[in-house]
């Protein structure tokens, strides 16, 4: 069966040679290589649940009278967008599950991208020849954040509406063209003529996802072409890849992983409430609700806005709202530019132009690890700064003290983190056998009271490491004799 249909296809497309190579493709095994898979699979969940949502959600600011399952809203005037989002939560069967799964998978998507990116950074996987894939990855992170914000805005509830208002003001803060950009995007002065929801919808369900799908294809294509990196270890060199073959081992594991990622998303969606828009109410530009935070991936922008001093520039008949422009436009711009440029910044600094297929251990590269830790700490500090009010309440201290703490700590603590990390890495570099898996010693006491020490039995993983890696075998009776060159085995050179 398989044989004859393969023949049919191969006659026309010639896929057998490349296909065989693909099935033999080796994937190195390490837990940290799964992080990217989480991102991939939560994107699959986003596409699936998103299509479900768009069957019921109507992107319209048009006002209607609500008649649905949520009783407190009965008879009130709400926008169609809000009514259908609440409807998804109350009237569509399985709708709440799908809505919350969509939102949870957005958070998991961006979280796993961030952790995946940290893995790639700290192990030096972005070095030559993989700079393209680093850039593609950073672009997807950027698009993911944008699409998360757009989606968050769609239900037209009080919290998301406030977010749109803030976004409009940030656009307005750009010198020269800000007011024009705002007017063009919103179809007029805020809140515009109701066009913003359909526009956000189009971007959210079509344009940005299509860009992400394209980049994802490039990301995976480059991965196949350039092959995966691996950690140093027995038999692993710059010129080979050691691990499990695509078919069947990797396929089984990764399929299972797709199921697990989806499962966790749906279990969260069913048991952990997220974004209960019916409690926030319909957006009205003059209303606001207290102590609601944006999704976590927007928090870092909110933090910089809070700790920025109120420096507005006024002169020559113009205003430049530096208190907005610097923290909300320039700062994220600089951060993303550093992200994009990092492979080149580093290779210029190290003058390292060689190919790298073996990964670094973070402690072997103290400066890079220090820089990464500094960036993580900076992100963490400004994220924390986005809840100054919550902290002031919680610790019963004055808001002013909290604010000044962050104004000093946000630049200072990351710098300290850099030096401490570099120091720790250097000390670890000198230590004997650090990071090696240690075999425990078992101490015996004989009947006569003598003590003796014996190394414990090998654990399952210990023995495994000791085999020499071999090419993926194919059994001879499946392969024409002239292609087989060994006793039962042929080897494919590529």
């Amino acid at each position: 069966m398989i044989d004859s249909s393969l023949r049919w296809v191969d006659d026309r497309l010639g896929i057998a040679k490349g296909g065989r190579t693909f099935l033999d493709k080796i994937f190195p095994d390490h837990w940290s290589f799964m992080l990217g898979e989480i991102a991939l699979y939560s994107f699959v969940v986003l596409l699936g649940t998103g299509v479900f949502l768009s069957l019921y959600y109507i992107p319209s600011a048009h006002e209607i009278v609500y008649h649905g399952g949520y009783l407190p809203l009965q008879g009130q005037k709400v926008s169609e967008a809000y009514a259908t989002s609440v409807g998804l939560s109350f009237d569509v069967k399985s709708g709440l599950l799908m809505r919350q799964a969509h939102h949870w998978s957005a958070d998991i998507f961006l979280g796993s991208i961030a952790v995946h990116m940290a893995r790639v950074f700290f192990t030096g996987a972005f070095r030559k020849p993989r700079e393209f894939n680093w850039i593609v990855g950073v672009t997807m992170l950027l698009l993911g954040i944008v699409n998360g914000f757009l989606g968050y805005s769609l239900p037209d509830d009080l919290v998301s509406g406030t977010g749109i208002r803030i976004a409009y003001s940030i656009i307005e803060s750009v010198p020269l063209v800000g007011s024009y950009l705002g007017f063009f995007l919103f179809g007029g002065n805020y809140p515009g003529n109701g066009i913003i929801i359909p526009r956000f919808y189009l971007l959210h369900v079509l344009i940005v996802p299509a860009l992400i799908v394209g980049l994802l294809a490039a990301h995976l294509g480059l991965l196949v072409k350039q092959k995966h990196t691996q950690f140093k270890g027995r038999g692993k060199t710059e010129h080979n890849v050691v691990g499990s073959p695509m078919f069947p081992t990797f396929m089984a594991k990764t399929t299972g992983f797709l199921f697990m990622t989806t499962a966790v998303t749906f279990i969260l969606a069913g048991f952990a409430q997220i974004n209960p828009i019916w409690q926030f109410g319909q957006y009205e530009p003059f209303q606001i609700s207290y102590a609601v935070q944006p999704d976590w991936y927007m928090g870092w922008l909110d933090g910089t806005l809070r700790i920025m001093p109120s420096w507005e520039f006024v002169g020559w008949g113009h205003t430049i709202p530096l208190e907005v422009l610097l923290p909300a436009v320039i700062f994220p711009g600089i951060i993303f530019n550093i992200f994009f440029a990092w492979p080149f910044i580093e290779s210029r600094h190290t003058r390292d132009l060689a190919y790298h297929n073996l990964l670094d251990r973070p402690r072997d590269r103290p400066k890079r690890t220090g820089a990464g830790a500094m960036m993580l700490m900076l992100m963490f500090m400004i994220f924390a700064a986005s809840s100054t009010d919550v902290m002031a309440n919680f610790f019963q201290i004055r808001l002013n003290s909290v604010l000044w703490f962050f104004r000093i700590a946000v630049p200072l603590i990351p710098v300290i983190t850099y030096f401490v990390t570099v120091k720790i890495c250097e000390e670890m570099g000198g230590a004997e056998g650090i990071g090696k898996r240690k075999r425990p010693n078992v101490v015996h006491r004989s009947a006569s009271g003598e003590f003796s020490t014996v190394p414990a039995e090998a654990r399952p993983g210990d023995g495994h490491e000791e085999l020499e890696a071999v090419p993926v075998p194919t059994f001879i009776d499946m392969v024409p004799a002239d292609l087989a060159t060994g006793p039962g085995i042929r080897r494919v050179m590529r």
Partner: protein
Amino acid sequence: MSDESPKAPSLTSVSLEDPHLQPYAKHPGRAEALAAAAMVIGFLGFIGFGITYWISDQTQWQAATLGGGMLALGAGVIAWGKYLMAQGPFVEERHEFHSTEAERDAMTAAIVERGGMVVQRRKVLGGLFALGSTAMGVVIAFPLIRSLGPKPAASRQVTNTDASLFATNWKKNSQLVTAEGRIVKVADLDVGGVLTVFPKGHEGSSPDQTILIRLAQIGPNDPPFQLESPGRTDWGVQGYVAYSKMCTHLGCPVGLYQKLTQQLVCPCHQSIFNVASGCVPEFGPAPRPLPQLPLKVDAFGNLQSQSGYHQAIGPGFWERP
């Protein structure tokens, strides 16, 4: 993919007894039983979801059955892959994917020489094509960008709030009404009371949102209520003052009034405005005071505006003087 050579130099033969082909698990039977059990649980979970869907719309049950099913099935497949398939490790060579120097030179030559030949010989055509496509790029941008929305009005005289960042609908003698359109009277608020108001006919409009605060209980015959802010001492009336509710930081509604300290707090980034001294920002990122609306009372005890706002409300922007 590169060529497949049947005459591979080094060959590794693997027999069926080779440890590489043995499963990773020490006791494959047990591992298989576990994987099978997980898959059975997965199957039952999906059946459970099917039943749940038809008999109730209980989100928790749906999540538990569907999610539990996928978790178990996924665990089963992973166990199969990890413990029961050939443990390896297997190896594959990397090939150099860059071309040889000669190939690179050939490509460069093709671009530089062939291209150069054509472009240099036909300079006019090249120039015209560049001109034409640039023109196309520019004009295509017109509908793509310019059609999106109106330009912000350049003139300060424009009164349409949709068209100008300077305009509000507050004019001389605008009647103060609530979001529901109810007329606001002097007797409506006690000291410390606040109300969001709009000019009559523009209820709920974003740029017009104004917060009305009663600071003191002063009757019509008491000595007039004097504000601290210079030049605006008579902008309040009978203990009432009114300020734009749109934060000068990023435009959030400044919705929180603290009676004791007479402060308005913006919940977005905690800017704090001192109401008694003209809503000057005392704390946080807001750069400017909230603009004030001058008030008066008409013969029927209804609150009205003496005039519109004297400056642009809301966050800063380039054209703001």
